């Protein structure tokens, strides 16, 4: 196949063969990712990227195809989101400059690792980033769920944002829509981190949104809206850079769309029937399981790189455990959503019957 990426360790990166079973699995992954994405308002890449890697797609191809998938979705949704008025354009523009530097750095690093250590090295790097990021995030969400303040219904931001807004490191910039005045340096650090993550694992909002809320003190809706604005640029720039090096597999992108666009609508509909705590609980479970799955996958990559010595049987069992935990987590998440919907419908039905009986 012309244009295949050849790396320095002599491996030729081959896109996987798409059999009917693989096609169905990728569309299914897209559905699970899309449904969770519509439900928790995040990209869904934390399921789709590891899922594709578990199917044998090289990590770098999974990340780049996922970025292209995210970019197309963001472009189509851009017009609608811009009408919502939740985007602080000034903040977005300042962040985009640093975001693109972060994406470029991530693409360079990913390609460098792929070229020097091969597919296993690249997979190991991406998996390590996933484990650190997803386990940290899962713990953070669980702490947030069980925080006493949250149980009382108050959504008070941490004191960190207040402290940071008082730190006067010039240039200080006033963001009108977000209604905050912060140092450009904090914006730059968050932009760089978001871009680097988007370019490395295909999703940057994991860091971008919480950082904007808890570090800069930006209202949740503005943070989410501005992140969507940034996602277009990180997706476009990242996908373009990877496409320039022949890493984007359009077949994967199209198969992901088959499931994700349908799942997205179903997940978004479900949000009308659940509480914020239930959304966060599903998020913590799915993200936590995804982190465990990547942790199980790491020994195999270490064996491939001859950095560790496990028997073939152990490596195979761990590899199987990685696949089971990943799909298990996604399926548990979807089942929890379905259960919440059923419970909502039952409660709704009972309420309607009560109101009919009591005039």
């Amino acid at each position, binding site marked *: 196949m*012309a244009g*295949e990426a050849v790396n320095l360790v002599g491996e030729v990166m081959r896109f996987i063969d798409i059999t009917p079973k693989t096609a169905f699995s990728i569309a299914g992954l897209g559905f699970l990712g899309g449904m969770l994405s519509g439900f928790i308002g995040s990209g869904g890449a934390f399921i789709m990227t590891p899922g594709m890697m578990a199917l044998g797609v090289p990590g770098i191809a999974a990340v780049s195809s996922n970025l292209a998938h995210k970019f197309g979705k963001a472009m189509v949704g851009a017009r609608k989101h811009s009408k919502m008025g939740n985007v602080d354009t000034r903040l977005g523009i300042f962040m985009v400059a640093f975001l693109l530097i972060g994406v470029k750095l991530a693409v360079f690093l990913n390609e460098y690792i792929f070229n020097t250590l091969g597919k296993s090295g690249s997979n190991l790097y991406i998996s390590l980033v996933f484990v650190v990021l997803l386990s940290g995030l899962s713990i953070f969400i669980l702490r947030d769920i069980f925080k006493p303040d949250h149980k009382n219904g108050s959504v008070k931001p941490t004191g960190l944002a207040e402290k940071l807004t008082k730190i006067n490191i010039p240039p200080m910039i006033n963001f009108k829509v977000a209604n905050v005045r912060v140092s450009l340096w904090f914006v730059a650090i968050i932009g760089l981190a978001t871009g680097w993550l988007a370019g490395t694992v295909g999703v940057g909002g994991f860091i971008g949104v919480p950082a904007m809320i808890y570090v800069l003190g930006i209202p949740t809706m503005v943070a989410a809206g501005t992140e969507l604005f940034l996602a277009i640029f990180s997706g476009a720039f990242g996908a373009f850079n990877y*496409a320039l090096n022949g890493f984007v597999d359009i077949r994967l*992108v199209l198969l992901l*769309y088959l499931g994700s666009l349908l799942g997205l609508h179903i997940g978004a*509909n479900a949000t009308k029937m659940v509480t914020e705590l239930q959304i966060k609980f599903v998020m913590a479970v799915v993200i936590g399981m995804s982190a465990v799955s990547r942790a199980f996958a790491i020994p195999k990559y270490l064996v491939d790189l001859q950095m560790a010595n496990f028997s073939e049987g152990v490596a195979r069992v761990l590899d199987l455990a990685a696949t089971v935990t990943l799909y298990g987590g996604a399926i548990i998440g979807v089942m929890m959503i379905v259960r919440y919907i059923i419970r909502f419908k039952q409660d709704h039905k009972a309420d309607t019957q009560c109101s009919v009986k009591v005039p």
Partner: protein
Amino acid sequence: MSKASKSGPLETIIYMVLSVCAYLLIFFNIEQLNQFFLSKAVIPALCLLGTVIGIAFLYGTAISHTLSVLGLESDH
């Protein structure tokens, strides 16, 4: 989606047929398309992203219309 909620079955069918055609066209010509898309140059990379946006628009609109016809439309 207000526009989608006004859409009729005909529009839904048109978008669905167009999406199916686009998918079939791409998957039946994937060898030739990949030769172009993976040639590591600016124009092919831009064309690849353009194709992705086109498919996302066609299939996304088809799904959105279908769900709105079924009374399951969302804000996405």
